[in-house]
């Protein structure tokens, strides 16, 4: 039976300093996969290398355990000694590997639970393996199923609902205030990293007009260039606030720069149109009282983080339900995989039966072609054909049953009964005993009977 396996490292087992050593660049993956399949007892392989994980999903040659070899292979490919990374590399085989792949695809193993980015990365990795010619029917079916499970988990649970980081929360909140961010003007006050992140997120969410202001005009210009925004002088702050719909403030000021008094003036000039203010500075840039001004919605870093924590707690709850879905689906896939292991046997059995039946049919056809037969003779030939085929098909199993060791005979007989759905007659043993001196049943006996009939 082909066994699925997983070998790799992830954020759970290794810090980024180790993960980056084992990471593969996109252009290296095809060559690596081909080398893996050529050098190890691996028939199918896929390599996924992201910032949070480097994993090989593969199918080992029947009867072999490929995980040890793949561990070594991964380390050597990156110029490391296997012992150096032995503690951080994990492996899974069989059902554990299937469950792991399904969990990864469903974002249950992601650093941020439910972060769907991994699904796209897995799909890309599957595409690369296809291009390298290293993905096959088992891995292919497993990945396709994993994508289906991920879709099911996303639609049936709330694992991906609710923003999981501060800048996404800020955008979500802005969308509760504004119908469409595309026509909104964003004012970024200060030039900190958080401002950059939030502004970029708003930009990708549709906000087209971003203005940056900072006490240092150079810093404002630098940030503006980085995020495709316009820099304006600090002295214009009040006018800029009047024109802004979303304000992100993240300065290093020790005292609040956005006061209630200022916002009362601003709100009046804006005719109390809605204004969303995100204060991500510590110490805070905005006086909490500005949230009392009509039309102004103020959220500071604590408010945003509270939302993140609440969303993550919700996701964790959904994770339990998602885990049950993954378990169920993994069980079903494992069952399918097990049935696949008997497919070659079923094929061989059919071929064997067809060969025997075909050969006997050919003989019968030739016999009938030699001269004309009466209907009774034709019937006799057909009967003989059937008898011959049955005897030939049963010859090997019945012989094996008769010559088997006493401790195996009962088991084999029981298996045959189950496979053919038969129940031995109670008097069959007595009849068998009477026929013992005449020897075992072979195809010759019916042939003789047949000849006699002719």
């Amino acid at each position, binding site marked *: 039976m082909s066994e699925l396996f997983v070998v790799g490292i992830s954020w759970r087992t290794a810090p980024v300093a180790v993960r980056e050593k084992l990471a593969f660049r996109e252009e290296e993956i095809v060559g690596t996969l081909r080398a893996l399949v050529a050098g190890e007892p691996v028939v199918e392989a896929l390599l996924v290398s992201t910032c949070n994980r480097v994993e090989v999903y593969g199918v080992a040659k029947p009867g072999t355990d490929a995980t040890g070899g793949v561990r070594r292979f991964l380390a050597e490919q990156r110029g490391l000694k296997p012992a150096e990374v032995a503690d951080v590399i994990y492996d899974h085989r069989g059902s554990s590997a299937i469950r792991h792949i399904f969990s990864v695809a469903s974002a249950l193993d992601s650093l941020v639970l439910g972060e769907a980015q991994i699904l796209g990365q897995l799909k890309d990795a599957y595409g690369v393996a296809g291009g390298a010619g290293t993905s096959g029917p088992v891995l292919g079916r497993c990945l396709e199923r994993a994508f289906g499970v991920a879709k099911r988990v996303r639609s049936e649970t709330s694992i991906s609902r609710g923003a999981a980081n501060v800048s996404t929360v800020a955008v979500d*909140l802005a*969308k*509760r*205030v*504004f*119908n469409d961010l595309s026509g909104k003007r964003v004012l970024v006050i200060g030039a900190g990293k958080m401002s950059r992140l939030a502004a970029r997120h708003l930009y990708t969410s549709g906000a087209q007009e971003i203005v940056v202001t900072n006490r240092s005009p150079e810093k404002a210009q630098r940030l503006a260039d980085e995020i495709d925004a316009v820099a304006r002088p600090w002295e214009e702050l009040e006018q800029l606030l009047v024109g802004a719909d979303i304000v992100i403030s993240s300065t290093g000021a020790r005292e609040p720069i956005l006061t209630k008094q200022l916002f009362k003036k601003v709100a009046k000039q804006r*005719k*109390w*149109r*809605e204004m969303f203010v995100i204060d991500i500075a510590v110490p805070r840039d905005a006086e909490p009282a500005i*949230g009392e001004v*009509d*039309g102004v*919605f103020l*959220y500071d870093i604590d*408010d945003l983080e*509270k*939302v993140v924590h*609440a969303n993550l707690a919700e996701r964790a709850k959904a994770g339990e339900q998602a885990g049950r879905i993954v378990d169920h689906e993994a069980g079903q896939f494992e069952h399918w995989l097990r049935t696949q292991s008997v497919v070659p046997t079923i094929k061989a059995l059919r071929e064997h039966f067809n060969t025997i039946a075909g050969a006997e049919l050919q003989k019968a056809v030739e016999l009938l072609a030699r001269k004309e037969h009466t209907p009774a003779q034709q019937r006799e030939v057909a009967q003989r054909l059937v008898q011959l085929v049955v005897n030939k098909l049963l010859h090997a199993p019945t012989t094996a049953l008769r010559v088997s060791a006493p401790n195996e005979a009962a088991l084999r007989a029981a298996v045959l009964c189950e496979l053919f759905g038969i129940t031995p007659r109670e008097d069959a043993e007595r009849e068998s005993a009477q026929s013992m001196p005449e020897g075992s049943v072979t195809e010759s006996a019916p042939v003789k009977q047949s000849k006699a009939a002719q």
Partner: protein
Amino acid sequence: MPAETVERLLSVAPSPAFWIAVGAYAAATAALFMVLAGRQKVRPAAIALVAMALIAHGIDISWRGTLHVHPAQSVREAIGFLSFIITGGYLLASLRYRLTIGGVVIMPIALIMLVVARLSPEGTTPEDLSTLGKIHISLATIGVGVFALASALSAIYLVEERALKNKKLDSLVFRDKGTPLEALDRMSHQLTWVGFPLFTVALILGAVWVAKLGESLDRPEYPLAAVTWFAFAGLLVARQVYGWRGRRAARLTLAGFAAAVLVLAIYLIRRIVE
């Protein structure tokens, strides 16, 4: 339910469509509650039930029309018609936005209005109701219906705004994502613009009608109707001239609608008393 009431109900509303509408309104309310409780998959069914209620209600009104019962023939009929307009407006708006919280409030109100319309006594419906009177009642009904929708959106605005200000993001109003404040404000504004001219014409025709009938103008509903008109006129001026938006505009919308409800209530009570 007293036998007399049942008899009255059956005598005025034997249309099967009425019963279907009542069932669909009740089922839509229950379904919208389920959506609000987190069962998002029920949402399409809830909207379908609202549509079903609207269609059945429309058929009931049409059926009554075939029996020469005009939807603006009396206050009772007008209340049923008003409920129909509100439901239609809600259905249209909810095709674009998630207004579950609004539906949870509007659907039971629409149901109550429909049942009240059919249960309340016919009163002294003038058999000689003139065309002028019919147009007046029709326009006033449609105008108030549109104001009712604008007010419902303003009410949702105020609830959402309060929740956002107080950072109560797990509030019931956000269970079904909610509708952006800006969209609520804009829709309410647009509806006010639609309702105001209708209501204005209705008011003028009403005054002409009353003058023609030679009735006294000292009834309380007349100044209240004027208050309603002034409230909505003031709202439009505040929005257009002074640029009022958000909370202030929402409060003024609700104040105007409260006056309109008072007018309707006085009419209804008068008919019952008479």
